[in-house]
């Protein structure tokens, strides 16, 4: 199929998708586009529709609407086996009865290569993944990290024009994860076509992807580069992911009037709907109302909960303004913080960040 008129030639390359999937009470409706070489991460909470989107791209779930074009070819009616798409599944789904080599050779074999040819190609992929010595091993003999690389080799061996990865690191323990994440980043950087990965882990998304698409309740709530999203979260979910206090209100000069809560003073001058964000570390807590403080943002709060957060204590506060505050263990002890304790919280205007909503 040729691209319809009116679409500039540069968008014909890569992925151009509008995925609509209706299922029971759930509706997925997202737009995705990516140029060859891009790594896009679909980030979102459980049940947001990330995996459904991935399955729709692979053809395992039919679209109820929208379109899917890859390098200008319409794929929405193409069955999964005929799509130039490779998938790395969440728990890899390596065929347990086949060796690592035959798992990787499966795709080339299905694409018409002879047995010897397919195995030669597979051996090449395993070599590239540093798995040459595990070629004859059955999947159950492989470690999590090795299995992940075999799954990646298997998906790449069909030379897909779209690579999909479903929670590629979720099945790994913390130590392996670090190492595999670095390897995966290298392999994805070498991959010339479009890669889409699904994850609920912001770190995975930010390390692996050039661009994040955040999905909540089946729709895209924000997209952009990792640094943009980390600095300008637009939903509570994202703010929580990147560890920021986030408020929505209406800006008037240096002041942002929150929808529910006290006005916040910021350094930016804005007008109209705006977000204000500041990190929990910017919050200072006081037992008594501070007198000589230059902070314009002062609220009376109550400790709702405490938890350790790395080598810090994170205090969950309710009251005039619900917020999270980070403080050292010593500071927490000196303030005698415990659930129910009244505290005063201050934030310097210079440490807040306001941006248009």
């Amino acid at each position, binding site marked *: 199929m040729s691209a319809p008129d009116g679409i500039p030639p540069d968008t014909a390359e890569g992925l151009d998708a509008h995925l609509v999937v209706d299922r029971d009470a759930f509706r997925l409706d997202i737009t995705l586009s990516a140029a060859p070489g891009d790594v896009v991460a679909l980030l979102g909470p459980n049940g947001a529709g990330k995996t459904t989107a991935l399955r729709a791209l*692979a*053809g*395992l779930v039919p679209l109820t609407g929208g379109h899917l074009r890859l390098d200008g070819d319409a794929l929405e009616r193409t*069955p*999964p*086996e*005929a*799509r130039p*798409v*490779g*998938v790395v*599944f969440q728990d890899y*789904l390596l*065929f*347990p*009865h086949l060796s690592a080599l035959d798992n990787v050779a*499966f*795709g080339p074999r*299905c*694409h018409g290569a002879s047995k010897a040819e397919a195995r030669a190609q597979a051996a090449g992929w395993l070599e590239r993944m540093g798995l040459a010595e595990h070629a004859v091993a059955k999947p159950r003999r492989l470690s999590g990290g090795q299995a992940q690389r075999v799954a990646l080799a*298997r*998906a790449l061996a*069909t030379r897909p024009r779209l690579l999909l990865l479903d929670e590629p690191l979720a099945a790994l323990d913390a130590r392996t994860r670090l190492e595999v994440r670095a390897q995966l980043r290298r392999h994805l950087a070498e991959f010339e076509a479009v890669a889409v990965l699904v994850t609920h882990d912001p770190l995975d998304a930010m390390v692996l992807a050039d661009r994040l698409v955040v999905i909540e309740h089946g729709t895209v709530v924000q997209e952009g580069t990792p640094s943009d999203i980390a600095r300008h979260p637009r939903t509570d979910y994202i703010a929580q992911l990147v560890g920021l206090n986030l408020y929505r209100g209406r800006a008037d000069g240096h002041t942002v009037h929150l929808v529910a809560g006290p006005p916040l003073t910021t350094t930016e001058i804005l007008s109209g709907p705006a977000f204000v964000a500041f990190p929990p570390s910017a919050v200072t807590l006081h037992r008594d109302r501070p007198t000589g403080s230059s902070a314009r943002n002062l609220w009376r709060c109550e400790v709702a909960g405490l938890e350790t957060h790395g080598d810090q204590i994170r205090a969950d506060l309710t009251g005039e303004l619900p917020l999270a505050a980070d403080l050292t263990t010593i500071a927490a002890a000196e303030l005698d913080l415990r659930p129910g304790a009244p505290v005063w919280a201050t934030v310097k205007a210079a440490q807040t960040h306001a941006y248009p909503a």
Partner: protein
Amino acid sequence: MTPPASDTRKGGRRPGRIRTGVPFALLLPALLGLAFLLLPLVALLIRAPWHSLPEQLTSPEVWQALRLSLVCATSATALSLVIGVPLAWLLARTDFPGRGLVRALVTLPLVLPPVVGGVALLLALGRNGVVGQWLDAWFGITLPFTTTGVVLAETFVAMPFLVISVEGTLRAADPRYEEAATTLGASRFTAFRRVTLPLIAPGIAAGAVLAWARALGEFGATITFAGNFPGRTQTMPLAVYLALQSDPEAAIALSLVLLAVSIAVLAGLRDRWMTTS
């Protein structure tokens, strides 16, 4: 886990060995039931004509019946595999209107009296049967009262065992392996052949053994649809029944052979069915 109970650990006694006491009202009928099942088998062994057994078992009639039984049961199993495994796949992996009804109909021969099955086969495939008359008129094929008829009668009765067993295994198998195969470019049939089939092979083997054992013992449908012609349609169970009226010793000898085969089958399946979980 469980709190340390030092007294039960003493003397190497395992925790499961604590005496719990079986109520007499349950124990008595249980033992009675056990005796009821075992006694006939023991009687068979006690009354076996051990001295004349070698002679009985080497007679050409016994060999003829045994060979026919093995050939027919194996052919019926093979036929069940060829048409039963795809049927099981259809029931387990696709959704079509009336699937529940089809599934119920497939399992009907499990509960149907085999003689009724034989009569039904006659009405369908007999010389004047619904399909049989055309087979006879067009191709000159006659099925009843032939060895092929034995195979068909046994397949009719035994295949549901295979279908049920394979369908259960398929339902337990992760369908996402088939999805993974299709994303690698495999058609649905290739995915079935190269991924699903090897994965469910143990279930197929168990179903096949079960079907084979059922086919080997088949009596009612066989005698109704295929008759009782030595060398052609007289399988072991038929031979046993016939011998019992003229030569009881031969009947016992034949029964021993079938018992031995059954025990062998059970031994082969012990990992699957004799270990309770």
